[in-house]
């Protein structure tokens, strides 16, 4: 059983949703980012998404754009992001870790080499924003052949005709982008979330994690009652943007993570 499968099975036993956290690798710098990463499981993160910075994050709003700029400005690259995962895995063998980003840095690194290095580092899954199922042969198939899950984004525009295409070959969990828009923008209403969950349920048995626009413990709890996972990204990344020192950035992210975790854990399903 993969780490993602075990984690979602465990949470099902506990009758609660997963808190899925996103931060960008190398933001604000390598050492602080590694400290955040290592601190997240104890702060209540059940699944970790780690962003691979890119100069042109076309689907991200201002918060994550700036995170990319900070990380790249401090010399982060794919080699270092994979190194960060290896260092994380030295102490943590349970928490699933998913890399998220855009295709070009992986393409430049070399797909074969990337898949091998990601597997060796202990990466459990990939979310690649600009690789729709039409391009499964690029990375999805080689990654899955190496036992790395390929997690699909589904959106309000993914209609019933297209859902099977998107879900075919997806594994790990399904990430539902609850609003058409960039990261960190507006949020969906609970009615919309319920409708989407019901619709997705007809097409897949994979755990459903819902993201985009979720910022507070109360909001996370609302979503946690309706899905297998709640994804929070921009709100955590904002803690880094507003911090005066790297230590404040670490404390800010982990502090908010603890609050979100309390919200999610209190929300029995």
């Amino acid at each position: 059983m993969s780490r993602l499968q075990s984690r979602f099975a465990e949470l099902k036993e506990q009758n609660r949703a997963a808190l899925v956290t996103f931060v960008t690798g190398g933001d604000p710098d390598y050492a602080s980012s590694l400290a955040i990463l290592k601190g997240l499981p104890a702060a209540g993160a059940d699944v970790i998404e780690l962003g691979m910075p890119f100069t042109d994050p076309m689907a991200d709003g201002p918060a994550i754009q700036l995170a990319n700029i900070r990380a790249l400005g401090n010399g982060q690259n794919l080699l270092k992001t994979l190194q960060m995962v290896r260092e994380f895995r030295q102490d943590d063998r349970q928490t699933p870790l998913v890399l998220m980003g855009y295709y070009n840095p992986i393409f430049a690194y070399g797909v074969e080499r990337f898949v091998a290095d990601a597997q060796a580092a202990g990466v459990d899954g990939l979310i690649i924003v600009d690789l729709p199922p039409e391009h499964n042969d690029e990375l999805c198939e080689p990654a899955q052949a190496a036992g790395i899950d390929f997690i699909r984004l589904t959106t309000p525009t993914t209609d019933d005709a297209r859902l099977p295409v998107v879900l075919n070959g997806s594994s790990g969990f399904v990430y539902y982008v609850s609003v058409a828009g960039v990261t960190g923008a507006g949020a969906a209403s609970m009615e919309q979330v319920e409708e989407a969950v019901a619709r997705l349920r007809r097409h897949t048995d994979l755990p459903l994690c819902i993201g985009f626009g979720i910022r507070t413990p109360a909001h996370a709890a609302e979503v946690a009652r309706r899905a297998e996972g709640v994804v929070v990204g921009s709100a955590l990344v904002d803690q880094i943007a507003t911090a005066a020192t790297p230590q404040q950035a670490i404390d800010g992210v982990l502090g908010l993570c603890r609050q979100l975790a309390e919200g999610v854990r209190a929300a029995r399903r």
Partner: protein
Amino acid sequence: MSSLRTGPDNKGLFGRFGGQFVAETLMPLINDLAAEYEKAKVDPAFLEELAYFHRDYIGRASPLYYAERLSEHFGGAKIYLKREDLNHTGAHKINNCIGQILLAKRMGKQRIIAETGAGMHGVATATVAARFGMQCVVYMGTTDIDRQQANVFRMKLLGAEVIPVTAGTGTLKDAMNEALRDWVTNVHNTFYLIGTAAGPHPYPAMVRDFQAVIGNEVREQILEKEGRLPDSLVACIGGGSNAIGLFHPFLDDQGVQIVGVEAAGHGVDTGKHAASMAGGAPGVLHGNRTFLLQDADGQITDAHSISAGLDYPGVGPEHAWLHQIKRVEYVPISDDEALEAFHQCCRLEGIIPALESAHALAEAFKRAAKLPKEHLMVVNLSGRGDKDMQTVMHHMSEQEKHA
């Protein structure tokens, strides 16, 4: 011999270039667009309307002008200029804008967004949006806004909202990122009117088809004037829509030599250029796989060119493929070479070319001198230079200071 004009395949690929590398939110819309375009391009009513606007609104056909004095000056090839600068709004951009807005109308979209570099595509988009009564939002980098004030004002006069983009270096690539973000957010009512033959499928093929009117006219015009096809074609390449529009109808004519001119800025070896084929590598950006300016980590690097319209770190995927199979020869021309050609064209022909087009002229002049008088060369004069007065003035005063 098999035809080179049948691409892309059903996945939107030209060889291994092109494709649909976009966020899932956009995929359903892009597929709808591709399906609608397939229908429109064989619909006589659509084609008739397009032809009407070409003729009575844009002023097509644009002349194929024999540049007698330039030809004499260089003493070699017979140089013809395809006068896209005489189109309504002053460049080839409007050919594509008319086509896409007719498609937007067909699809019931009411809001048009666009990215622009030099502002020519922004102006052309604002123009057709005004003509068809649609809301228009144009994303433009702040660097480009500074160097293209007149075009910003033009867009506003035409009723468009111009949104400054500060990210990155504030040029075309950043404007395109921002337009994509708008599109993801407003996908339900918005049509993204991409200005060049790049982006996710079907844009590269669709924009090419709308621009192919250039090459199709040249074919008829040169046959009428000279009784035979040209020996060579020369056009400048940013994203490459004017070039693919000229080249595509001739791809299967092996006797026609085809030359694309990239912007070498300060020089391809200086790192300050926009020549993605001479100085870049294959990668994936803005929905397609193509040649890109990037570092070893796959991070996109900034392009530089004196001409805002060529200041983009990528190139249309069909050009990437034509480069790979060597059907088209791609060469770099520097800022200084383009400026020299700009002045020569002004003084010898009384035509002020766009700085973009001046890149094509510079390469044409280099070649013309060495070619026999019976060589027929067609250069795409893709736009007029009125928008570049400030840039050229600035450059001339800098030179005087250093003289």
